[in-house]
């Protein structure tokens, strides 16, 4: 009765959770533009997509995906056999236990006639599957600990998932172990199934079960003779063996019985068995209820994401489906950290100390963006930088074991955040190059660039802003002192391909290369930092190579660019 109530509660929570998570697939999303789709529009676009696949040759891809991606988990296998073994052990062990043990009255009994949970191979297999799961969890824990220096981030929720799974299995072993040793369980079963005629036979049976099957009863050890045991064996073969294999087949629980049995007997074995039964059931049922609200939801979302990935690759479907795919992807993330381990930008994370540079960390936060949750300005700024400091190498997308189209997700998110108007100085880096190449958000990109330009205009004075005559001061120490050798021959300016690209370069660029050296020479670093020239430099190094006095112009420009960004970023904090 209590079990049924608990089961009802847990299943209802699970179903409500699944409904909520799945409805988020069709209602949330990260869109850079204002294009809106209603829930029914999203749902029907998705169904259309599904049908067009089911009734085309692409159905083959789905079948292929089922075997290769879902069953074989090929995407994990090609990256790391260690991870694959860990996942395969947990995945197959847990699923087999779920179907063959938890649902035995529905599945196993109908599949195998003559099924008794106490018979072999079932008795043995349950333990075997449990040990598989535990071994998988152990490898996963080891992986998380050993890869910490490689920037693998582990949250409390990641540990929680591992602990939860391990706890279910361990409580199962404890329960079975104490049942093996329990006198009351033994007595109950003898009463129910036993063919015991007198007290002597009862004694013999007990002796045999103590000796062979891990039963723990406070007996006089001297009284257990070989003769008694062989008599017990006879009774056992008559009463028990038909439906109960030897307990040593349940090897893990049998070992537990040896250790925990005496303790349980001392405390009161009937109570202990009962308590452990509740513990095991409560753990299983709360796991079921917790599943949709945790990363364990990937059990459902990852297969969907993987099939979509196999069918579509990184190609985008209709705009409504792109959003739906984003959301399925976000919910399929297990925070396994594979993407961050191989992220090409991982060293920028070390330099900027911005967690959001790691793809796995971005994803966790993008869920909030997708759900439309408000974020404070500081977090937004950090997330925006994290999204921008990306080399567009697409490794994360290729690696993701859940097949999430991270590339699309990150680009959409990047422009979604930039659209909010916070200037992003890293736009001025070469991270912008692949974006310019792809041309996917050209106008959004230009708009974001304008925001940065405005910030520069506010932060720096240009030559034309200055009313007073320029004053002379001692050249400031500025990392690279080679500008001091400049004798204004203007070779740099004359050879510069950028200068020659403008009809009126002075106006377009603010300062010309030789003027920048001059401005550093008179100690006006600010003026040099504010000139448009440094951001228009094509970094071709012709000026530097041709300078007769070895002034390192291009390197100085880099220094000025760094300093200008530093100044602006520091200004933002003040």
């Amino acid at each position, binding site marked *: 009765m209590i079990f049924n109530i608990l089961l009802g509660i847990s299943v209802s929570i699970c179903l409500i959770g699944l409904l909520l998570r799945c409805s988020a697939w069709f209602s949330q999303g990260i869109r850079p533009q204002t294009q809106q789709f209603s829930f029914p529009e999203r749902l029907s676009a998705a169904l259309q997509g599904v049908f067009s696949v089911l009734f085309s040759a692409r159905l083959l891809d789905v079948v292929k995906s089922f075997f290769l991606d879902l069953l074989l988990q090929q995407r994990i296998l090609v990256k790391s056999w260690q991870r694959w073994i860990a996942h395969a052990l947990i995945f197959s062990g847990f699923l087999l236990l779920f179907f063959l043990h938890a649902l035995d009255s529905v599945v196993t009994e109908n599949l195998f006639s003559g099924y008794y949970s106490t018979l072999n191979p079932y008795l043995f297999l349950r333990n075997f599957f449990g040990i598989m799961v535990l071994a998988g969890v152990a490898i996963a824990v080891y992986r998380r600990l050993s890869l910490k220096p490689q920037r693998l981030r582990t949250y409390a929720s990641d540990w929680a998932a591992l602990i939860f799974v391990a706890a279910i299995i361990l409580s199962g072993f404890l329960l079975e172990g104490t049942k093996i040793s329990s006198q009351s369980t033994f007595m109950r079963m003898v009463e129910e199934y036993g063919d015991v005629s007198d007290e002597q036979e009862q004694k013999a049976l007990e002796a045999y079960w103590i000796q062979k099957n891990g039963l723990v009863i406070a007996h006089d050890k001297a009284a257990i003779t070989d003769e008694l045991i062989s008599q017990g064996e006879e009774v056992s073969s008559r009463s028990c063996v038909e439906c109960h294999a030897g307990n040593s087949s349940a090897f893990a629980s049998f070992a537990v019985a040896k250790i925990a049995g005496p303790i349980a007997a001392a405390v009161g074995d009937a109570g202990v068995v009962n308590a452990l039964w509740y513990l095991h059931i409560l753990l299983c049922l709360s796991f079921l209820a917790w599943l949709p609200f945790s990363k364990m939801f990937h059990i459902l979302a990852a297969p969907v994401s993987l099939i979509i990935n196999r069918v579509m690759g990184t190609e985008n479907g209709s705009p409504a489906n792109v959003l739906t795919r984003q959301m399925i992807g976000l919910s399929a993330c297990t925070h396994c950290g594979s993407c961050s381990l191989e992220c090409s930008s991982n060293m920028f994370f070390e*330099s900027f100390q911005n967690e959001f540079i790691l793809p796995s960390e971005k994803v966790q936060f993008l869920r909030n963006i997708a759900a439309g949750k408000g974020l404070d300005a500081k977090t937004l700024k950090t997330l925006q930088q994290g999204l921008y400091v990306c080399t567009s*190498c697409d490794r994360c997308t290729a690696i993701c074991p859940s097949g999430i189209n991270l590339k699309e997700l990150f680009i959409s998110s990047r422009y979604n955040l930039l659209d909010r108007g916070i200037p992003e100085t890293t736009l001025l*880096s*070469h991270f912008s190059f692949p974006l310019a190449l792809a*041309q996917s958000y050209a106008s959004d990109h230009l708009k974001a660039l304008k925001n940065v330009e405005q910030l520069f205009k506010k932060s720096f004075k240009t030559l034309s802003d200055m009313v007073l005559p320029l004053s002379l001061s001692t050249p400031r120490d500025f990392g690279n002192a080679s500008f001091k050798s400049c004798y204004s021959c203007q070779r740099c300016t004359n050879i510069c391909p950028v200068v020659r*690209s403008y009809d009126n370069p002075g106006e377009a660029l603010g300062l010309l290369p030789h003027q920048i050296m001059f401005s550093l020479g008179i100690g006006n670093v600010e003026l040099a930092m504010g000139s448009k020239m440094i951001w*228009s430099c*094509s970094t071709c190094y012709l000026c530097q190579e041709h300078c007769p006095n070895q002034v390192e112009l*291009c390197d100085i420009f880099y220094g000025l660019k*760094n300093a200008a960004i530093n100044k602006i970023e520091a200004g933002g904090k003040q």
Partner: protein
Amino acid sequence: MKYAFFQGCNIPVRIEQYADSTEAVLQVFGIELERIPEFNCCGYPVRNVDEKAYILPSVRNMAIAEKAGLDILVICNCCFASLMKAKNVLEKDSDLQKEINTLLAKEGLSYTGKTEIRHYLTVLHQEVGTEAIKKKLVNSCKELKLSVIHGCHVLRPREITRFDDSFVPQITEELVKTTGAKSLDWRGKMECCGAALAGLNDDLSRKLLAEKITGAQKAGADFITPICSYCHLQFDTTQKNMAADQPGTAILPVLLFPQILGLCLGIDAQRLGIDRNSTIERSHIEQINSQLGPPVEEKKKRVRQQAA
């Protein structure tokens, strides 16, 4: 000979054919390339923002190669420059080396400077040598006119890249010569493709690119041969984007050096990924194939000259 193959971020996902053709060509000369998945970005993209953040990734890459006991072979000019820059900076700055090594120690890496950085052209020119290349040729493409664009960051600043004469580069020219193709003398050969400005100032970036395209076309080039991966993307992708904005523009097709050399070494065009260059049409491949002839036999000429 075996090298750690440093491809950078662009090549594996946008110009795979550059890696494939280089691998195929070097294989002919017994040079093996090991792909190392742990390599990260060279640091180049962040240079405008933070010089130190620019140096660090290259040091880690060299430390990874050092652990593997290999020297690094690079295709991309900008990656090459970043690795060389980091090497140069650490040679002079032992404090920074110490600081970076403390960070790298966490993942069991350490940088001592043992790893050498080699551009694939240097390997072809110095380790293999033009004579050895000529011996393996089965074809030559005498009538092919190429506009080579050397790329800025492999030549300059010369103190850092230590690659070739930065005013009169020889390595690439001599290598092209082995194939029989004519490397045209054209305006823009040593200049900027505009890649460094893409995404920051697209107008200016495209202007610089257009200048190179028309320059090469005026010089009569059949193909443009970019050495740097950024140049390649400018010519092979941005050029097409530009043409889409201005229909009717003549496209200057891109042919990479290892693709040309590969053809002359008898490697299949498919394996060299020539059709994966997006500016290459079927007619271009037919054109190249029709121009392939037996290798030029210089010896005979010399004998004749001597006789005369």
